[in-house]
């Protein structure tokens, strides 16, 4: 028997072994949450299919770039999973990249006193992932790149960081980034982090953005472009040209709807 196959196998083995440290060297931790929500019929069947597929694309792109990506989809996407993954990102990595797609809730709307400052992300079973309870304690300045595709996730900032209410700090931009000093400004070009969220309602993925492009495509293009080394402003201008046929992001309906707080000149870490 020739030694050639053994030599080839051995070389392949050495090559593959060298990949392992890269895959597990955990400098940047990434996570994609997709709590498709079946409560009260909040998502259509098509929306669920699109969300799963698009979030899987995004997870795979991040996994390819960083050698791994935590994911939590469907029934797995509980409050506890949000907390545990965020805790791991905080304690085991130097920087964190997070994408979450789903619905927004008001956790204290029927509490005493009722409160409309605080918001939550709805987990798969409808239980709220509350801004100051389940997110803020498990994030830090390490959360340098965050995109929360739920309703109103660009609101209550900086008010919720500067003037906490009786329940505590509030608003997703602050709770995901802990950015208070310095504050993040919309579409700014300085700072160490960037946070993207929606002012008012976030479009469902099945919603047509323009022509044949829906918002699932918008999310896909954004992350595809980012994972290739682009900056946030380049990615947003690319979407403006590709999806809307205009030169600049400020000329699209997304301007001041999809708000990027912090430094839009940043690439993924």
């Amino acid at each position, binding site marked *: *028997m020739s030694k050639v*196959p*053994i030599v080839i*196998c051995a070389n*392949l083995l050495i090559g*593959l072994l060298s990949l*392992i440290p890269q*895959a597990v060297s955990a400098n940047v931790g990434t996570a994609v949450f997709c709590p498709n929500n079946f409560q*009260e*019929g*909040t*998502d*259509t069947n*098509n*929306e669920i299919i699109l969300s799963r597929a*698009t979030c899987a*694309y995004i*997870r795979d792109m991040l*996994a390819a770039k960083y*050698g*791994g*990506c*935590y994911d939590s989809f469907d029934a797995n996407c509980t409050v*506890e999973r949000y907390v*545990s993954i965020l*805790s*791991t990102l905080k304690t085991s990595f130097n920087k964190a990249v997070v994408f979450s797609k789903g*619905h*927004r*809730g*008001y*956790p204290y*709307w*029927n*509490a005493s006193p009722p409160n409309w400052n605080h918001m939550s992300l709805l987990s798969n*079973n*409808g*239980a*709220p992932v509350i801004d100051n*309870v*389940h997110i803020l304690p498990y994030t830090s300045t390490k959360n340098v790149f965050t995109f929360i595709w739920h309703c109103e996730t660009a609101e209550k900032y900086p008010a919720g960081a500067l003037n906490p209410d009786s329940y505590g700090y509030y608003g997703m931009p602050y709770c995901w980034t802990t950015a208070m000093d310095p504050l993040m400004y919309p579409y700014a*070009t300085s700072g160490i982090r960037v946070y993207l969220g929606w002012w008012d309602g976030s*479009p*469902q993925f*099945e*919603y047509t953005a323009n022509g*044949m492009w829906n918002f699932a*495509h918008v999310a896909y*293009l954004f992350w595809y*472009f980012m994972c*290739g*080394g682009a900056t946030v402003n*380049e990615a947003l*201008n690319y979407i403006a*040209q*590709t999806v809307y*046929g*205009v030169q*600049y*992001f400020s000329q699209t309906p997304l301007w001041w709807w999809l708000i990027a707080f912090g430094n839009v000149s940043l690439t993924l870490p």
Partner: protein
Amino acid sequence: MNSQLTKVCARAIILLIVFYLIGCFSYAFATQSAAQEKAIGFVEKVLPLDLTKYNLTLTRYQKIMGPSDLAWFTSEVVEFTLDSKESTLVVTCTVQNNILISCNMIAKKGPVISDRQYVNLVEGVKTFLERYQTFTKVDSNDMISMLSGLDITKDLSITAGNIKFTLSTVNNFGTEILQFKWVYTVNGVEYTSLQVGFQKNGLFDSFYDNRLLYSIGDTTVNVSREQAIDIAIKYSETYSYTMPDGSQIRGFNITKDQSKAKLVAYPINSTVLRPYWHVELLLNQTYPGSVVGLTIFIWANSGEVFHCSNIAYGGIDYSDTGNLDWESPLASPSSSPQDNTSTISMGVLTITVIMLLVIGATIVRLSIKRK
């Protein structure tokens, strides 16, 4: 006999892998080179830069493939960094269907070293367009002539024949840009466009041109706005969508007076532009699936509906969510332990481990055979 067969198979597989890899690399190289050539040509022949002062380095190449339902879409991004003692520039070009459609330039450090001086900004734009016309060989004289005597201190809009020109100040993430935009229009519908942006200090910022990317098809408009809305409402009576439990949602109540329709000509699965009505029907309530409206596209010449999708948002209307099935909104997770058993979705690691197992097993098997 068996041994010989194994040898032949092993060699065939190795050869196949080698040929496959060579094929992949040469395809990627050829594609990259074509896009790169376009981009370099643009930088050298059109941009107002003194390239004798810069070292040009390719710093990024990315091919963007459309998702599975838009598999026809591809675009390539080519980024160069231009370095000199005094300044650093980043130039990013996008190539689609082998056509350069956009380019933007960012001064990362120091002043931009230009190869020429202009009397004013309009002259700068004019020279840019003349050089761009030579580069693309697309006649842009009608557009260039619209710059004559232009007052750039105020926004304006001029139409000459089928070309609508607008000058406006646009915000590009904090930088004020003077945008010169020419759009080819027929019966008020906008088709292809050339858009050029300069900073107010005269620096080139970016351009976008889809005139070569798209062709213009039948521009006939036989359907009026009112007719389009009526067709859309009629269509909505037959439209339904499915919920996760399999139930069909249909029978929508439309708020007609809030319906919107605009006549547009964006590409629809083709590079041929045709006018269609983009109609948005608002519903009188939120339907299951958070659906508040319908988007319906109707060809403007035939009145045929060719697209219908839901308008929906990700919020929860709290007027009707009192029975959301959660335990307690105040339940604290602070005792939740850190997840040490998280299953990290490691594509690379999983594949690596599987391959290691296969290779390991092969080596063991081969070693046993040799003995």
